[in-house]
């Protein structure tokens, strides 16, 4: 019996905000998201607005900042950098606004590879500042398949890169695990429709529990889907706490996340 109240603190490092054209999302606003967070024990969520990833990075980033302002201490923002939409402008904005705590890139949606020159400024900025970068990653994608991040990690060893979805598919998870095992700058994030507790356990067994991060993709997907895999997984208490919040607190040091620090 799981009960109706969560027992652990959660930090969600992979979330979005707002509607998405391909399907209906009921109540995708920040207030509803915070309501979900209250029910799941989530202290803070880092969001990249759907408008920013899907259509207009600059306008979407403004939406993310509005959500931070509306829910201080609960929502933090990624600055989405689209390689086709003046990436230098968004990096300058990010540098000058401490409501942004990280960078989000979505190479598959923007159809541009993580190894391409238009992303160079992102990796260089991350390496110089310690700003974490969350990237979509997807098995066999020509833009963000997990092995491509090994080239990024080799060239920018000081840039902390979160492999969002850890490659998505089970073979993609295996590739992500291998990449993270080779490069300590690569972190694994656990949301995705094909993720299971068994795959999360495989990540922890290979790279340890200290570089595996909880994310949910909500409101794209309901937060409790990803959370349930971690909460019910056969992990030790320490491993579960690492994944659910401790690792996020350790990683987001450039601009620390709001709330209690580890």
């Amino acid at each position, binding site marked *: 019996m799981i009960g*109706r109240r969560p027992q652990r603190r959660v930090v969600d490092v992979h979330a979005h905000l707002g509607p998405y054209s391909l399907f209906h999302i009921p109540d995708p606003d920040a207030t509803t998201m915070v309501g979900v967070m209250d029910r799941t024990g989530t202290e803070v969520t880092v969001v990249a607005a759907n408008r920013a990833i899907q259509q207009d990075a600059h306008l979407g980033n403004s939406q993310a900042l509005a959500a931070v302002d509306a829910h201080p201490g609960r929502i933090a923002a990624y600055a989405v950098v689209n390689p086709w939409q003046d990436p230098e402008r968004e990096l300058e904005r990010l540098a000058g606004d401490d409501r942004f705590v990280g960078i989000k890139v979505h190479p598959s949606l923007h159809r541009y590879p993580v190894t391409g020159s238009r992303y160079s400024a992102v990796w260089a900025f991350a390496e110089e500042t310690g700003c974490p970068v969350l990237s979509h990653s997807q098995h066999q994608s020509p833009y963000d398949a997990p092995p491509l991040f090994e080239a990024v990690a080799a060239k920018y060893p000081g840039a902390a890169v979160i492999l969002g979805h850890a490659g998505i598919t089970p073979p993609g998870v295996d590739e992500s695990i291998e990449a993270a095992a080779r490069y300590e700058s690569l972190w694994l994030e656990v949301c995705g429709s094909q993720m299971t507790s068994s795959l999360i356990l495989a990540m922890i067994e290979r790279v340890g529990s200290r570089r595996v991060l909880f994310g949910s993709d909500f409101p*794209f997907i309901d937060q409790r889907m990803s*959370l349930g895999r971690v909460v019910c997984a056969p992990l030790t208490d320490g491993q579960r706490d690492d994944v659910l919040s401790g690792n996020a607190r350790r990683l987001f040091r450039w601009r620390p996340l709001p709330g209690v620090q580890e």
Partner: protein
Amino acid sequence: MADDVTSGWFDAHIVTGAHPAALVPSSDRDAIAAHLDTHAMSGALVSSMASWLHDPIGGNAEATAVARSLADRGVLACWTAVPPTPGELDSLDRLVDQAVAEGVAAFRLYPRSHGYSPVDPAMDELYAALAVNGLPLCFDVTEIDWHHLDQAATRFPTLPIVVSSLGYRLLRTLWAALRDHENLSVDLVDFAGHQAIEWMAANGLADRLLFATGLGLRDPGESIVRLAWSGLDDSTVTQIGGGTADRLFGVRRATAATGGRP
């Protein structure tokens, strides 16, 4: 105690047997028993992986074997059918008669995987027999086109139909189907849309939601945490956790509880 509403749930979708292409928790007999114990569930509906991926009719015996072995735990069998085909199946009527005699509680079809049309006139015999006997018909949405589902639900309005594995992209389509067919329900296996359960309940459709984990196919933690930490009141959680199953499988559940005596 308020937490009691997260016990006594009926898991309406378990598939027993090895999955050949996914890393998911075990769903053999002992794993199902442990699943029921761990989460204080009142029972489950179990179909067979062999019926889906190896021998549609022969695999039914494996579902029945698990159900018989765990009958005292409220486990019921769910069988699979295919169109009558010489050498494979003589009569759908007789298959349903046999299923009723053996206490089977529902049927699950895989038209796409098994290579036939679910609206082939030969299938009418099955749908009519299931409707007469009050046996629900279950489909994963990946196995059937929506217009075929619409056709079957229209032609057999007293046949309870349960759809599964909605994912997070189909709420627009689901809404139209639920609006048009009172005999249609949806289970919680991969019912992943943000706030989709709350959205259904707010629109008066909580009684069309059926708790299920998809053990054998998916990570069961998804559905468990999704419902337990939902934004629904306790009575609605209880309705979804077991009430809908009582309506759909109630006679068989009651019969199983008395050791097969009516």
